[in-house]
C-alpha cells in the first residue's frame, strides 16, 4: 500500500473498494430477486398459454361442471376442486390444534432436556419425501384404515353418510391423514418458534400476577402469536393443496364428489394433474389440465393474500408489529 499523507489516500482507496462492493452487492441481490420474479412470471405465462384452449371452450363453467371425459371431450373441475378443499381443510382441522399443542409442549412444558430431540424428531417428519410417504400410505396406512378405522367409524358414526360405506384402502380418508402428517411438521416448528419468541417478561408478569400456566398460555402467549399462527396455518394449507404424488397414490383417482363418503375414492387438482398429464388423448384434455393448474395457482394466490390481510388486521388490533 502507498505511504502518502494519511488523510487524502485513505478515503480515496476505501471509497473505491466500498463502491465496487456496494455495486456488486446491489447487482447480485437485484439479479436474484429478478430471477424469482421472472420465474413466476414465465410460469404463469406458460400455464395461461396452455390453458387457453380449455378456457375458451368452457369458460368459468369449467369450475361447476362435473364431467371429466376424454371420449366425449368434456371436462370440468368441480369434483376435483371439492376434493382439494375437503382434503386440505380436514388435514388443517386435525393438524393445526395438534401442531399448536406440539409447539406449546416443546416451548413451555417439556423438560429442557427433551426439547431438542423431540423437536428434531417432529421436524424429521418434514424431511420424508412425499413419494415415500405415499408408499407408506399404500402399504401400511391404507390397510390399517380399511381393517380398523373405517369399520369402527361405520359402526359408530354410520348414520352420518360421510362415515358410512365399504371400507377401502384408498379414498379420501387416507389422503386426509397423509396430508395431516405433511402439515404437522411445518405448523408445529413455526409455532414452537413463535411461542419461544413471546417476551419472557410478559409471560413471567402473568405468572407473577397469579395466573396458572394454562391461563398464561390462553391469555398471553396465544394472543401474542396469533398473527404468526395464522400465517403458519396458511403455509400448511398451501402445502396440503399442492401435494400431488402422495395424494395420487392413496386417493384412488376417481372423479367423484368427496362429500358422499370419506371412504370412497376421489381426486384432487394436484393429484389429477400428476396422473393424467402424460399421454393426454386430446389437446383439449391437456389444455384442461393446464386449466386445473391455473385454478391451483389462483387458490395459492388467494390464500396468500387472505393470510396477509388477516395478519395485518390482527396486528392492527393488537397495536404491535411482529
Amino acid at each position, binding site marked *: 500500500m502507498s505511504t502518502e499523507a494519511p488523510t487524502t489516500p485513505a478515503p480515496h482507496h476505501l471509497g473505491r473498494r466500498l463502491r465496487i462492493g456496494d455495486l*456488486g452487492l446491489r447487482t447480485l441481490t437485484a439479479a436474484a430477486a429478478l430471477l424469482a420474479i421472472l420465474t413466476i412470471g414465465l410460469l404463469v405465462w406458460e400455464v395461461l398459454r396452455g390453458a387457453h384452449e380449455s378456457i375458451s371452450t368452457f369458460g368459468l363453467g369449467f369450475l361447476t361442471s362435473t364431467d371429466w371425459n*376424454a371420449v366425449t371431450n368434456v371436462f370440468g373441475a368441480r369434483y376435483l376442486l371439492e376434493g382439494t378443499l375437503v382434503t386440505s381443510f380436514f388435514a388443517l382441522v386435525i393438524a393445526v390444534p395438534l401442531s399448536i399443542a406440539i409447539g406449546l409442549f416443546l416451548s413451555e412444558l417439556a423438560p429442557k432436556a427433551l426439547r431438542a430431540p423431540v423437536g428434531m424428531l417432529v421436524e424429521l417428519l418434514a424431511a420424508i419425501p412425499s413419494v415415500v410417504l405415499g408408499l407408506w400410505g399404500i402399504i401400511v396406512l391404507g390397510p390399517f384404515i380399511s381393517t380398523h378405522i373405517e369399520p369402527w367409524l361405520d359402526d359408530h358414526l354410520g348414520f352420518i353418510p360421510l362415515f358410512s360405506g365399504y371400507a377401502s384402502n384408498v379414498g379420501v380418508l387416507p389422503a386426509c391423514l397423509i396430508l395431516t402428517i405433511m402439515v404437522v411438521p411445518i405448523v408445529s416448528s413455526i409455532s414452537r418458534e413463535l411461542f419461544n419468541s413471546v417476551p419472557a417478561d410478559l409471560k413471567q408478569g402473568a405468572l407473577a400476577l397469579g395466573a396458572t400456566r394454562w391461563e398464561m398460555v390462553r391469555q398471553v402467549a396465544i394472543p401474542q402469536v396469533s398473527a404468526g399462527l395464522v400465517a403458519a396455518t396458511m403455509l400448511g394449507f398451501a402445502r396440503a393443496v399442492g401435494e400431488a404424488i402422495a395424494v395420487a397414490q392413496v386417493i384412488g383417482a376417481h372423479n367423484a364428489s368427496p362429500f358422499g363418503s370419506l371412504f370412497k*375414492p376421489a381426486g384432487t387438482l394436484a393429484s389429477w394433474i400428476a396422473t393424467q398429464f402424460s*399421454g393426454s388423448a386430446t389437446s383439449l384434455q*391437456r389444455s384442461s389440465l393446464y386449466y386445473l393448474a391455473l385454478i391451483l395457482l389462483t387458490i395459492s394466490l388467494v390464500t396468500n393474500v387472505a393470510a396477509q390481510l388477516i395478519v395485518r388486521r390482527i396486528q392492527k388490533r393488537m397495536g404491535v408489529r411482529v
Partner: protein
Amino acid sequence: MPKLKWLIVPLAVAAVAAGCGGSSSSSSSSSSTGGAGTSSADNSVLVGAGSTFVAPLVAQWEAAYLKTPAAVTITYGAVGSGGGVDAITARSVDFGASDAPLTSDQATACKGCVQIPWALGATTVDYNVQGAPNNLKLTGKVLADIFLGKITSWNDPAIKALNPGASLPATHITPIYRSDGSGTSFVFTDYLSSVDPEWASKVGTSTQPTFPTGTGAEHSSGVIAAMQATNGGITYAETSYIAADSLDYALIQNAAGQYPKPTNGAVLAATTTGTKRPDGTIKLVNPPAANAKAYPLASYTYVIVPKSSPKAATLRAFLNYAVGPTGQAFGPPIGYPALPSSVVAQAKTLIAEIK
C-alpha cells in the same frame, strides 16, 4: 487478497449460469421442436419409452441385441402408452411404444409419426377374492356390468349362473382401473364397447376412459398391487402378470360361447379375424363367432417412430431385428406369440419408410 475474494461470487454465478445453459429442456408440450434433447446422432444407443404391456419383451430384446454384431444399447422406460406418445412427440426419445392407436390430436402433434406393430399379446382380467376359485367364467356383458357398477358383489346371481357349483363369497366387488394414459385401458374398453352397447354409450373406448365406479392406480404394476391389497378387487393387465405373481384370472367368453385360456394359440387364433382401422392399426378384440378358439382380448402393440429420424439406420436395424424371427422368438415363452407373417411383412414395409 481483498481483491481476489470479490471474484468468487461472480465466478460462482458464471458457473451456475453455464450449468443451466447446458441442459436444454427437451419436453416442450405445445410446440414440438425436432432434434432437441437426447436424440443426438449417437448411434450406439437407442432410447425408447412407452407401453408397460410390451415392457417384458423389450427387456429381452435389450439384453440380446447388445450381444449382436450391431451392439446397440437399447434403453426403454415403461412409463405407459400415454407417456410414450408424449415422449416421441417431443422427440426426447428415439422410439415410443403404445398399445392404442394415436388419436387424431396425437397424430397431428407427433408430426409424421408411423405406428408399426411389433408384438402380439393379450389382456387378462385378474381378480383377488378370498374363498373363490381360480378361472371364474365371465361373459363380456357381465364384465361390463361389473365395471359399470351394476353388479356389486361376487355372489351376484349373474356370476353364479355362469359358475354353477363354485363357492362365491358375498364380498363387495372393487373394480380397479388404470388412472394414467394406458393402451391396456384402450384394449379393454374397446372390447367392452364391442360386446355391450350400454358400455359403448356410457363410457366408450379410450386410453383414459372415465370409469363410472372403482379406484384408479398408475401403471400395470400399480393396478396389480392395488388388486392384491383389496379383497374383492378385479382389474385388467397383460398376461405376463399371471405367472409372475400367481394371480387368479377370469375366463372370458368369446363370441362362439367358448371360454379359451389366454394361451399363445388362442391369441394367434384371434389374429386370423383382425379388422383394419382407417389409420392402419388392427383391431383384434371380440373376434366373430366363426373363430371358435380365439381369445377375445388379444391386441397388437405398436412402436411409434418418426418418419425422419437422425438415427434412421440404427432404428431400422433394431426394428427389423425385433419383428424378425430372432426377436419374435423371445415372445412365446413369456406370453407374446410370434407375429403372423402377413403382419411382419406389413411391419417391414413401414420400417423401410424410416429415413
